[in-house]
């Protein structure tokens, strides 16, 4: 074990190295590029035994990733935002072929308007494809989540690919002290890849990845994928516990923070949850009974654990760093459905849209959230967009300039 000061991107590269991946098809995109550059440097210097190929696009990159995994090697790749969307078609193909590779997504809001900063509209758009999804709060968690993701994805009862998400800029370029396991320690937790079924490398001639089938078979295989994701949910605590016993770091699917006697809970994901935790700590010091729930695993969705943690609360605020246009926050919908039918479900469930395109939370916004939970509006389904008056004035000013230029 060693300790190093690493960016989130460099940590992701370290995780791939410690996972002893064989193959890295790559394509650059900000803010993910440092991951593949780091891997390329190591591989070309002979420090890491793997093959890296720069492809012509993310679509090709993900196709090569899936095909290589189908042939029987351990595959890692990474992308962001428009890149994930460009390769989107292949997400379904990879998951449908049950190929357990790991894809890191460095979250960045999709265009238009164009931004390099994070929100989760990119990664959440992939939530239905059949990939397991983990969302990291810290650099350390990027490392740990990737190792755990391979273990879970490659489990014979799962065989589904995984996405590990980290926020662009806030995590991709933030240096933190990261504990790096020694290669043999990592290898003891994550043994070398052994394909569960005869793959394209099988000595016999094997037809694989048949393309066309009828509706009942299609339904059957989709159902199998769903059951595999449910199996992943069951297996996760076991694998996380083994990870904790080896490395001393616990990673529950849902992380409670100062929640024990909390009347109110705020639900968040990813690195902005660190800001949320600081705010909760402050509110606690002011005597407010508020806690935070962080979703680390978004697919499979940890229904039971979330219900257990939110049952009996007076109110829950969901902070979405994404927008399903015409509907609202994605997590709000997911959590609403998870709580439906729960006898002692929180009577108030509110939706907040914030942190889009990397917008930081402003002082006082968590106070406002709490106030709203205590005095809920009539229409609780309607999302509240986090904006300050100062921001609104600045937007007016910019709109006036843009409008002025055209007259």
């Amino acid at each position, binding site marked *: 074990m060693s300790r190093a000061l690493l960016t989130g991107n460099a940590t992701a590269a370290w995780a791939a190295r410690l996972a002893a991946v064989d193959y890295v098809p790559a394509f650059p995109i900000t803010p993910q590029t440092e991951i593949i550059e780091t891997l390329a440097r190591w591989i070309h210097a002979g420090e890491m035994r793997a093959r890296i190929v720069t*492809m012509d696009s993310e679509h090709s990159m993900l196709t090569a990733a899936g095909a290589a995994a189908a042939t029987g090697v351990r595959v890692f790749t990474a992308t962001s935002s428009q890149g994930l969307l460009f390769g989107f078609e292949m997400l379904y193909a990879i998951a449908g072929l049950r190929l357990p590779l790991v894809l890191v997504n460095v979250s960045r809001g999709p265009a238009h308007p164009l931004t390099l900063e994070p929100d989760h509209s990119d990664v959440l758009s992939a939530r239905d494809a059949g990939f397991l999804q983990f969302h990291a709060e810290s650099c350390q968690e990027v490392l740990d989540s990737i190792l755990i993701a391979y273990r879970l994805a490659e489990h014979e009862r799962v065989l589904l690919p995984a996405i590990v998400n980290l926020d662009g800029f806030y995590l991709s370029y933030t240096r933190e002290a990261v504990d790096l396991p020694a290669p043999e320690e990592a290898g003891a937790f994550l043994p070398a890849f052994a394909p569960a079924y005869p793959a394209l490398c099988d000595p016999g001639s094997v037809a694989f*990845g048949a393309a066309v089938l009828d509706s009942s078979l299609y339904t059957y295989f989709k159902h199998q994928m769903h059951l595999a994701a449910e199996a992943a949910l069951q297996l996760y605590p076991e694998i996380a516990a083994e990870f904790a016993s080896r490395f001393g770091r616990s990673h529950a699917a849902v992380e409670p923070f100062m929640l024990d006697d909390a009347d109110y809970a705020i639900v968040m994901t990813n690195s902005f949850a660190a800001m949320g935790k600081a705010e909760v700590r402050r509110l606690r010091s002011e005597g407010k009974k508020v806690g935070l729930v962080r979703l680390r695993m978004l697919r499979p969705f940890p229904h039971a654990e979330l219900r257990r943690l939110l049952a009996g609360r007076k109110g829950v605020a969901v902070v979405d760093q994404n927008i399903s246009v015409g509907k609202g926050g994605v997590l709000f919908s997911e959590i609403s459905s998870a709580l439906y039918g729960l006898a002692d479900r929180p009577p108030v469930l509110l939706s907040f849209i914030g942190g889009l395109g990397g917008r930081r939370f402003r002082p006082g916004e968590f106070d406002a959230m709490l106030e709203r939970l205590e005095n809920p509006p009539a229409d609780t389904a309607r999302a509240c967009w986090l904006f300050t008056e100062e921001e609104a004035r600045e937007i007016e000013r910019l709109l006036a300039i843009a409008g002025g230029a055209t007259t």
Partner: protein
Amino acid sequence: MKRERYKSLRTLPREEPLGPGGPLCAGCGGLLALRLFHKALGGNAVFVNAAGCCTLLATYPFTPLRSSWIYTAMASAPAGAQGVRDALDILAEKGKLGAGDRKVVVLTGDGAAQDIGLQSTMAAIHRGLDFYYLCYDNEAYGNTGFQTSASTPYGSRTATCPIAPLSPRGNPAPRRDLFEIWRAQKPPYVATLSAAYPLDLAEKVFRASKFAGPKLFIALAPCPPGWDVDSEWAVELARLAVETGIWPLKEAVHGEVSHTFVPRRFKPVEQYLSLQGRFRHLFEPKRDDAAIALIQGAVDEYWKAARPGGGRAPGETP
């Protein structure tokens, strides 16, 4: 072309790598080309497929192929071939692969090869990927009902260029020259194929096998439903395309072109066109001499350029 391996039909392999009973149309020229191609290639290949007619060969749980198969997507079969090739090489380096290398073959129609998949094909050629690429070219998007592709020849009727008052000649654009697009990157081997010339076809696969890198083939694939002909005419049309000069049989080694078969006397293109429903509007109810002359002119032009001074074509067997 001097034949090195396949001197007569007897010398073609007896083994059938492609079983009967597939769901493709009767008389499919693409399937026949694939069968001959696979015979010459030998078994134990990995086929990487892009969406097209041949995707139906992998209809669960059946496959007529004596080889492995992976379906990728319409745009990216060459990228899939990259993944398979690299993974096989990695496994071989680790000593985890049994004896005998597997050949990696991309199998696409002209819709994928010419249009949506062109980018990933160009990239695979540029990276020097060691793979075979077989495009069965039926000159339209055949699997979806024969819509215009970049391979569709001038004057062809398709589902998206119907014969109508505002489009009396069908497809208004000449076909895009995929052979030349590929050749421009100087891969070790590029060839055109016709299922009506099995020895030429098999010989080309054999010759290509000596090169590492991209080995690219375009096989003219008569399509009975799309071309609107009886199934029994498929091979005859594949032959007439060559005999009229419409489909030159050629190869390019590191970019240098030679014609592998040149008819002694070219038949008029009319003989090829008039047999097909997709060109029927050029002959009835009123004969469109201008359109036929335009098609003939393009063919004459091609061969004039291919045979400077009107002499023998480069590489032509006397």
